[in-house]
């Protein structure tokens, strides 16, 4: 290895030569070298403190005991702690009074939206619009079979509908009229039912049959009876379809939807928040006794005030 000065550049060579090609020696500045040493030292310390060395089934744990799962658990519990006070407030507030407190209502709607995505979308859909082909009701509209106030929605959520394991579940069964009404009578009743919402011409025979067999639950004008879960028949919304064939089918062999009672799986605060969310979807009804006047102050921010306003007035 002979080192020499390369004349054109005035730089020393490193002394290697391959087929006449030589390498110039342009060394690093010393501080750079020290930077390399510093990174090596850092790595040595890091390997001891943190998980680093891949072994057969898992990596070395590191003396600090740090793990990304541990980090996640910490963050989750910190978030839980941060929410705790709001949860307590929601738990302590009567559900009909929630809209009176815009911040709480906003928190409840947000929490309900999150819980909805986990527990409810399987049947009611991500947009809470239900699936008519399966008989899962739409929660955005203004038609409520079992009532659309906050209290009623909360009750439905808590106890479910036709849920065998819950004592207080909402339950009703429409009798099957197959064998009771013949084909002609069924067609007449279906025709009358459709006429209630203006979809067919009136049918006196059907009206007579309706008054005898149906009006007890659905009401003489077909307005329904939310207290016992009898759907309104005089509107544009049909859970199992509004065609003549679908109505006939429902008269002869009614379908009965089932919804679980969520009290066994969710805590009361989550159920309350879910009720608030469903109520806020645009069709929530107001409880019969007048709410105390809680017009939002101009100082409250828009979204919160709107939520309160909506809950108060929609429906």
């Amino acid at each position, binding site marked *: 290895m002979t080192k020499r000065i390369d004349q054109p550049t005035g730089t020393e060579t490193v002394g290697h030569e391959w087929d006449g090609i030589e390498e110039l020696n342009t060394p690093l500045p*010393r*501080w750079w070298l020290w930077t390399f040493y510093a990174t090596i030292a850092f790595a040595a310390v890091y390997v001891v403190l943190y998980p680093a060395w891949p072994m057969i089934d898992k990596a070395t744990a590191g003396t600090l005991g740090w793990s990304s799962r541990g980090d996640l658990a910490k963050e989750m519990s910190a978030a839980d702690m941060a929410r705790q006070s709001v949860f307590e407030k929601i738990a302590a507030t009567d559900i009909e009074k929630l809209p009176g407190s815009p911040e709480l209502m906003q928190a409840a709607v947000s929490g309900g939206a999150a819980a909805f995505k986990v527990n409810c979308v399987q049947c009611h859909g991500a947009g809470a619009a239900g699936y008519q082909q399966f008989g899962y009701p739409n929660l955005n*509209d203004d038609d409520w079979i079992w009532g659309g106030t906050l209290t009623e929605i909360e009750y439905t959520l808590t106890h479910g509908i036709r849920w065998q394991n819950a004592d207080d579940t909402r339950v009703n069964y429409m009798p099957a009229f197959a064998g009771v009404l013949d084909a002609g009578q069924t067609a007449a009743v279906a025709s009358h039912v459709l006429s209630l919402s203006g979809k067919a011409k009136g049918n006196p025979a059907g009206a007579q049959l309706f008054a005898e067999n149906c009006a007890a639950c659905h009401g003489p004008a077909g307005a329904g009876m939310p207290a016992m879960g009898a759907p309104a028949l005089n509107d544009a919304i049909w859970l199992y379809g509004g065609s003549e064939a679908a109505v006939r089918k429902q008269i002869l062999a009614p379908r009965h939807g089932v919804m679980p009672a969520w009290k066994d799986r969710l805590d009361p605060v989550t159920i309350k928040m879910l009720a608030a969310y469903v109520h806020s979807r645009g069709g929530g009804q107001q409880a019969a006794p007048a709410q105390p006047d809680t017009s939002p102050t101009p100082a409250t921010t828009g979204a919160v005030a*709107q939520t309160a306003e909506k809950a108060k007035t929609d429906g």
Partner: protein
Amino acid sequence: MADPKDLARPQPQAGQPRDWSGALRSVTDAAPAGPASAATVEDAGFMGSALYEKGKTVHNKRIDGPFRRFKWLVMLVTLAIYYITPWIRWDRGPYAPDQAVLIDLANRRFYMFDIEIWPHEFYFVAGMLIMAGIGLFIVTSAVGRAWCGYACPQTVWTDVFQHVDRFFDGDRNARARLDKAPWTASKTARRLAKWTVYLAIAFWTGGAWIMYFADAPTLTVDFWTGNAAPVAYATVAILTGTTFWLGGFMREQVCVYMCPWPRIQTAMLDEKSLIVTYKDWRGEQRGSLKKAAKNPDQYGDCIDCNMCVAVCPTGVDIREGQQIGCITCGLCIDACDKVMAEVGRPRGLIDYATLDQCKAEAAGAPPKPAWKALLRPRIFLYFGVWGAIGAGLLFALGTRTHTDLTVSPDRNPPYMLLKDGSVRNAYTLRLRNMEARPREMEVAMVGLPRGAVMWTDAVSVENAAPVQVIAVPANETKIVRAYVMLPPGTDEDESEHFAFRLTSLDEQGEQDIAETTFAMPEDDE
């Protein structure tokens, strides 16, 4: 001596390509030709190979001259802009901050005197960045690395710290002596004092930075009372550290080893760019005045006094030609002109000149004033592009409205059938009021059939109407959930596309229109 005919004399290689032979001589002098001695190599590193290069501290000598004074001026102006700008107040009324230049990250607003930029107008910032980039192209192709030499923060702060060195330790020779001196009490005291001043400058630098991101007087009080955000303290700590380290100790190493800009500039310089050059055809052969007096025919104008090297803030020898370490600050021009004046030779042995001009002068052409190098198509072209972007931005700034509407329809569910057979669609409206005062705005629907009504969460369905008036707070985007309802029996074909029209209900009467669609149920019965 000053006769130009004499100057042209010592140039045996006139008309030939420039080969920087003068530059190489210094290296070959230091290490004589032939195999370097083993001792020299081992000195340079360990294990017989030069793994690293020992850092050499640059102790630049004080110099005065036009370029030094220009450097003072630029330093004064840039530092003044940096430190003072956040403290300038600017009245924007009660709903907007009164700081002239403020990057309000929390509220996503950028204020610059009379201009306020919202996040959706970020193209203004992008345009200014493009202008800054093309501005650098102009400057580089016109006057070489002038940015590096005068205005770059690294240069400015290095200059500041070098003056601190001079204040505490004296000029070049005294500083070099003190570096080598043993660590006596007096040296320790001096070093501690100097580093304290370094730290104070560095801290002030970091402290000034955060003032751009919050109300400066409030933040100052918060900072010293411990109430500022942790990120403020962290930012100050990081910037103090980097300023202390990069300005106090790394200095020219940043330009030579870390900065990508000198490499990029290399690609933008050509033989028509002004750079700092040593006119070797005039200077070589170098020799002291004594040697030159004995053999006047053999020696050029360079008296090899090394003043150009001594004053250089990055420690390069400009006589070796263009190099990455040369930031073209012109201090060597000041130094050389001074020496030339003292020995009675014409100025400009080291000077701003283009390589073309150097070649022409070497061949005997008369010197041309440097400013003539600026008149060339490339610079006009760059300037034209730069000016066009600037004019475009100004035009956009002048014609933008302060009222803006965006609409996003609910997609799940797309429509909602109600009990009475009417159909409801929901939309999220974003109403932007970019004025620093609250305004009433009217939202209307254009292109929907008669009977279409609208309400929002704030006004209930009973108050549904074709037009709603919404109060939008000053300087804010108001997000409104709006419901639009078509009565039963509407022919759906004509109601597919429509638009929301936003009108500000003030003397400005600004309007914005946002198109969207109204979804109807498919007719399945």
